[in-house]
């Protein structure tokens, strides 16, 4: 069972709620006419939030799978709800991605959004808080609150500032996701009561429920499905994907960027955080089913993308294909697959986020998203061409750029699960190259045929400024992914071990009274006052946060000690 390790400052809370404070400030203390103040204020807030989140990386201890920067406060003790935040190797990168993309999303809206500025930036900032909270929450109740909060601003972003059939798309997005969420809520409550029954402990604590609650296979199966619907819609997996092209197409640029970059990751994050560790047996049982849907998603998404006439729709369907890769990696259930899936979540956020930004740039200039309206732009807008080309190759998975590392890990993981999975998935790589290159050719190459494109302006400084960080990350992850893989490594290893050989914390059944006393027993580590100067080192040997100290803590069963046995199943000996 992972421990909760506290930090000297409530850095997660600050990161999470700073945008909310900013939203209040904009809503209450600015006037409609102060457009510049609102714009730059929102940008400064999101930028500061990104800067505040940087210490998370600096102080993150990549050698452990424990939850770090943990914060716990009692919230609604009568039903065991606590305010519990913490991040591990799975969530830290997603948190960073969120703060980065949020700042970029604000910056990219400066020219595009001219109406209801105030409400718009309030929505964006609110959305950021929702997303960050979802990734940080370690209490089911808290998680669900953030999860639902997130929907509202997104709904308004599409419905108010969108284009095309924006109302239809917004409602479809909202209802579809809500439908899934409700099933998930059902699952959460079941877990809550099951856990209460088993331990007498009334708690929504995700860590405790995950590692203390042993569920029978049948129940695992049904609860897995409840969560599955919720997350599969969010990912989206085939055949739950049809809200995505509509929502993407009709959302404003920033909405699409956030939607593709972060919101879709909520689904995959849910699978990795809940489905795999809480329902290990069901996960293993349902691998063929999950892989089938993933592979269909990969190929189907790519094929449908190829037929699109609308750039945004094409990118949206490409997301279906890419997220298929992520899901394939997760359900390969080995370290390579899961690490690859996790990394690909980040990669997709960067490359598809960038693609939507690029579409946004041409849309702002020409107010059309039809591919046939463009052609031959290359000569006219050289800087744009370079940015677009790099992004395209990142999305295709060209070695040297980020997409390749993720795809490679996913495929090599999938291959070890079954060569058949990899065989089908590899075809997605060929198709991926086809539709992206074709898009690029139709937009950028040839002669300018449409006179409207003759005076197209190249990227301005603001656009370059928000694209460059993304491009830097593309090269960085592609050329030197070590820091990223390091951060997720131990968590991924533990997760794989967990799924393949689940062990449960033995807990003596207690009366309800003990619960309240436990809130706040998080172990304290003095971050800055550490004599060694490296606060990460000081975190070893911290006592188990919860659970009876007298009870044995069999974290690793003998059978699973030393991976390679069943956990990875990939040693040369094991294979032959």
């Amino acid at each position, binding site marked *: 069972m992972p421990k909760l390790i506290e930090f000297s400052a409530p850095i997660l809370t600050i990161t999470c709620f700073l945008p909310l404070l900013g939203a209040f400030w904009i809503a209450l203390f600015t006037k409609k006419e102060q457009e510049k103040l609102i714009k730059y204020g929102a940008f400064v807030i999101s930028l500061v939030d990104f800067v505040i989140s940087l210490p998370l990386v600096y102080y993150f201890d990549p050698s452990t799978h424990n939850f770090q920067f943990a914060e716990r406060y009692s919230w609604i003790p009568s039903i065991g709800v606590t305010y519990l935040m913490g991040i591990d190797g799975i969530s830290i990168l997603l948190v960073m991605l969120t703060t980065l993309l949020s700042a970029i999303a604000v910056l990219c809206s400066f020219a595009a959004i001219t109406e209801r500025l105030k409400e718009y930036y309030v929505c964006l900032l609110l959305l950021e808080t929702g997303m960050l909270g979802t990734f940080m929450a370690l209490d089911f109740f808290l998680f669900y609150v953030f999860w639902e909060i997130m929907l509202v601003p997104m709904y308004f972003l599409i419905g108010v500032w969108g284009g095309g059939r924006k109302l239809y798309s917004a409602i479809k997005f909202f209802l579809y996701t809500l439908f899934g969420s409700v099933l998930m809520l059902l699952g959460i409550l079941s877990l809550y009561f099951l856990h209460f029954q088993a331990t007498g402990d009334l708690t929504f604590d995700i860590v405790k429920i995950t590692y203390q609650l042993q569920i029978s296979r049948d129940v695992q199966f049904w609860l897995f499905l409840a969560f599955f619907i919720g997350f599969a819609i969010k990912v989206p997996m085939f055949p739950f994907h049809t809200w995505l092209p509509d929502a993407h197409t009709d959302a404003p640029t920033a909405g699409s960027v956030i939607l593709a970059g972060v919101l879709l990751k909520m689904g995959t994050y849910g699978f990795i955080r809940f489905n795999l560790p809480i329902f290990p047996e069901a996960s293993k049982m349902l691998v063929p089913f999950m892989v089938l849907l993933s592979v269909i998603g990969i190929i189907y998404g790519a094929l449908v993308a190829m037929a699109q006439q609308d750039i945004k729709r094409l990118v949206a369907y490409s997301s279906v294909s890419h997220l298929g890769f992520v899901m394939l990696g997760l359900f390969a259930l*080995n370290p390579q697959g899961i690490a690859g899936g996790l990394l690909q979540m980040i990669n997709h956020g960067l490359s598809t986020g960038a693609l939507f930004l690029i579409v946004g740039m041409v849309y702002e200039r020409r107010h059309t998203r039809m591919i046939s309206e463009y052609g031959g732009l290359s000569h006219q807008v050289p800087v744009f061409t370079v940015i677009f080309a790099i992004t395209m190759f990142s999305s295709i998975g060209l070695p040297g750029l980020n997409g390749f590392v993720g795809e490679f890990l996913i495929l090599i993981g999938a291959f070890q699960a079954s060569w058949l999975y990899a065989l089908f998935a590899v075809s997605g790589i060929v198709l991926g190259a086809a539709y992206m290159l074709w898009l690029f050719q139709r937009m950028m190459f040839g002669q300018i045929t449409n006179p409207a494109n003759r005076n197209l302006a190249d990227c301005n400084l603001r656009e370059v400024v928000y694209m460059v960080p993304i491009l830097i990350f593309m090269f960085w992850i592609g050329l030197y992914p*070590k820091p990223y893989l390091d951060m997720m490594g131990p968590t991924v290893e533990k997760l794989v071990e967990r799924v393949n050989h689940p062990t449960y914390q033995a807990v003596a059944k207690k009366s309800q009274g003990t619960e309240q006393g436990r809130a706040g027993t998080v172990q304290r580590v003095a971050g800055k006052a550490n004599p060694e100067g490296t606060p990460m080192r000081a975190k070893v040997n911290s006592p188990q946060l919860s659970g009876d100290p007298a009870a044995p803590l069999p974290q690793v069963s003998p059978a699973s000690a030393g991976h390679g046995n069943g956990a990875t199943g990939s040693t040369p000996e094991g294979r032959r």
Partner: protein
Amino acid sequence: MSQYVWLIPLFPILAVLINGLFGRKYIRDKAHYLAVGSVGLSLLVAIGIFIEVAFLGGGGDYILYPWIFSGQLSVNVGFLVDPLSAIMLMVVCGVGFLIHVYSVGYMHGDGGYYRFFTYLNLFMFSMLILVLGDNYLVMFVGWEGVGLCSYLLIGFWFEKRSAADAGKKAFIVNRIGDAGFLLGIFLIFAHLGGLDYHTVFANAHNLSTGVATAITLCLFLGAMGKSAQLPLYVWLPDAMEGPTPVSALIHAATMVTAGVYMVARSNALFMMAPVSMATVALVGAATAIFAASIGLVQNDIKRVLAYSTVSQLGYMFLACGVGAFAAGIFHLMTHAFFKALLFLGSGSVIHGMSGEQDMRKMGGLRRHMPITFLTFAVATIAIAGIPPFAGFFSKDEILWQAFSSPHGHIGLWLIGAVAAGMTAFYMSRLVFMTFFGESRVDEHAAHHLHESPRNMTVPLSILAVLSVVGGWVGIPQALGGSNRIHAFLAPVLGGHGEAAAHGAVVHHPSAVAEYGLMLLSVAIALGGIGLAYQMYLRRPELPARLAQRFPGVYAALSNKYWVDEVYLYFIVNPIKRLTRSLWKFDANLVDGAVNGAGWLTLWNSFTSGRFDLSAVDGAVNGVGTLITAGGKAFRRLHTGLVQNYALAMFLGIFVLVSIYWLS
């Protein structure tokens, strides 16, 4: 010296960064200083390393940094310096440098001058990564990188639709091969536990034949894509849309030989899989003769050379397939010299002819372009296989190995020999049509006809010298040589499977056969040249009459066996149709179900509203009015209702389930 190997790819990539970032605004037509200079520096380091490896026994594995790792997978970025990579370094840097110099003259005045050199340097970087990588994944990085540069450079004049199309085609066809390569990599990791050459080759002998066959066939699929073998060769002829120096560097001398390099590098794996070896040999031989036959009737000077390249690559694979990996690499090297020369020569012709590529509009050019003509003739003799020019030694060795190696077969030799005759024929045809006979040049072009500038002719001359002497490192023992290149490559490629080194001294039982075959292949080459002389200089009316006599054959050849058309109708178009129908399926059926569910809920809520209205209204009037108002509100907000209904439903279920569990 070897420890500085990382400098070799570093110079070009630095030039890429500088030219790429500042070329458009500041450097513009001075981009070549950096571009040529960086490759020159790389060449100097490469020469140093080559000397060290060849004479001082240097070399080794130099790991730069850990790259991808997860679980048991760990891949480093590292460079391997050994005889094989040393030879490849010399070929890539040497020929690359000459072509860079040539490009300064050829691309002079082009609007995308800086862009051209940026791409070209990026190509050098990727190609060097490909040959230097110490594991399959780094090789794959270079592999994809050269593919990218090929895409960018084929489509260099992207305003031309055909150029943009050709670039895309090259990339996608290559991706099919790459998918195979990737699967091969996965198989290697799954069965050998690592991707670095050292681990893989040290444990290769433990593989079962079946696994080894699967691995090598997957790898070979990658090689087929990159090296334009049947049936994935279709992109290479179209790639001629790129500027001619690109054709010379990428689509003749270096990139397309990457597949041969990869197969030779993996020789330990291929030797474990007889079926794969046979496949490689057969595909190589079939490609050699297939492409050569198309080359017989093409009229575009660059297309002839393109099919010739495909055919020559077939020879290299034939060599690998019969276990003569060293012979394959030897031919790779000599081919790089004379084929680069041929392409650059054709570029010089095209340059002089103001862009004309149709040989029917040339003729008699030798008087106007003496240096181009002379060097071109040298390369033609070399490729035709006349001793003592370079091509003779390498090609003859391949034919001999095809005949005598334990993996060989007389049928393979026969195909190779016939293809060699065709090669001699179409190359002489090209020379005769271009440089000899009556001038068919139109007046406009004739007016501008000129020899190319020095910075183009000097590289031609150097390559011409190499096309002669380049083969002397592999003179067989039967001719009194010592076949140095074999001894040099033996540590990497081993001696396995080859027939006892080419005519092992005189008392070898088949010495007579070897001399006989050698003479025969020279005779075939001379025959091909003679036939071309007859048909295109002595009796120029003959080709047309032959074409009339055998219209079917002629049509098949000149239409390249309709392979492109077949691919279009049986693969490309069906996929396009599939994508469109899938889209309809998605919009109507998958999304239809979602919308249908939505409407159903709406209808449900609406009818329940009605029921409420009529049932309760009768009972309580006051409440009735209230509900009427509510109903109106509901109708306006009807979509918002779904969540309430869903929520109510699930809360109900939840309560029931909880009661069930709690009781």
